[in-house]
């Protein structure tokens, strides 16, 4: 499940899957900008059927935080 999530993040950020890990602080990524945020949200909605509010996103630091949020909210 974690692997699938990392695949989604890599796709959204157009990064090599090998270059990201679940413990990464995603705001440190060079590719992290407002458009990357929308891409991730779109892919999360497509794959997990859930939407992440800005408030919840602000409380996430690592990809693991984001993954936990998405898995918890899964419909």
């Amino acid at each position, binding site marked *: 499940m974690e692997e699938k999530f990392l695949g989604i993040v890599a796709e959204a950020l157009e990064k090599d899957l090998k270059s990201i890990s679940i413990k990464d602080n995603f705001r440190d990524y060079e590719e992290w900008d407002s*458009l990357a945020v929308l891409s991730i*949200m*779109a892919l999360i909605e497509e794959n997990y059927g859930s939407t*992440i509010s800005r408030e919840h996103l602000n409380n996430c630091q690592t990809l693991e935080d984001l993954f936990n949020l998405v898995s918890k909210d899964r419909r």
Partner: protein
Amino acid sequence: MAFLTFKNVQITGISACVPRNIEKNSELTSLIPPEDIDKTINNIGIKEKRVADDSTCASDLCFSAASQLLGDMKIDKNSIDVLIFMSQAPDFYVPATAPILQNRLGLPNSTACFDMNLGCSGYLYGLSLSFSLAMHENIKRVLFLDGETFTKVVSKKDRVNAPLYGDAGTATLIEKSHSADSYFSLFTDGSGKDALFIKAGGARYPSSESTLEETLREDGNIRSDHQLFMDGIDVFNFTIRVVPKNILEILEYSKQILEDVDYVIFHQANKFMTDFFAKKLKIPAHKVPYCLDRFGNTSSASIPLTIVSELREKIEGKTTVILSGFGAGLSWGSALLNIGGCHISKLLEY
């Protein structure tokens, strides 16, 4: 209420007018780093937009569109019983702009004229009201004018909003006809009022020296309280939550399938967003017309502008379209109707 059916009423004419002045997003290098400009343009899908000059209002663009439409279709002005002006850029607070347009267009005193105010869902709301009125025995024709000039309320120092908005004015004629039934849905979520927001200048926060000051905001952009704020994430969240579902709802309500729909015309907000909807709903690309790249986001005028700029040569005897508007309020709506046989004027420049 949400879902409405209208019988024997149709759009019989649409026209649109845009300012002559073009502003290209590739020239925004003082605002967006040159290395990021191409990526930004690619993602939002907007290369350039039309910008009204200081002396041009939304009502002027609508006046031109309306004059052309009435002339093209040789409409007797005395047959127009209602004039609606939809805009978030009225000429004045008092009086409403619709009476001013009645006078300029030479419509009779017996024309009922009033303004409506909604954001990007405005065309759906105004159109549904026009249909409703046109069904009335004593109402022969409704002239629905929808125009916006958001470029005037966006800060030129706002990296988020400056590339997005363009100006346009449109005119739509609605009257009785032996047409297929038309279907509408209209929704609201006022808890999202802060997502698309111009704070000052109304009764809640009157204008003052401090509201006019351009200051650096939390999102890193510079603007005054009289300039548009948009929370991109909240707006995107809202649209992905409601828009695809709303398209499915209008199909179900009208007992139609996507295969029978010729075009789905989305409010032209952002290509990334509408591509997402089309992909999610499996709508083939040839059914989703865009004019976003040349005109930007023209708010409530974007749907009629898209019809004029993209479908003028493509309307046949029966052309079934879905219209989808969503935006400030938060407010959203959709329609499924036949625009077959509708007159579409050539796009005007002001």
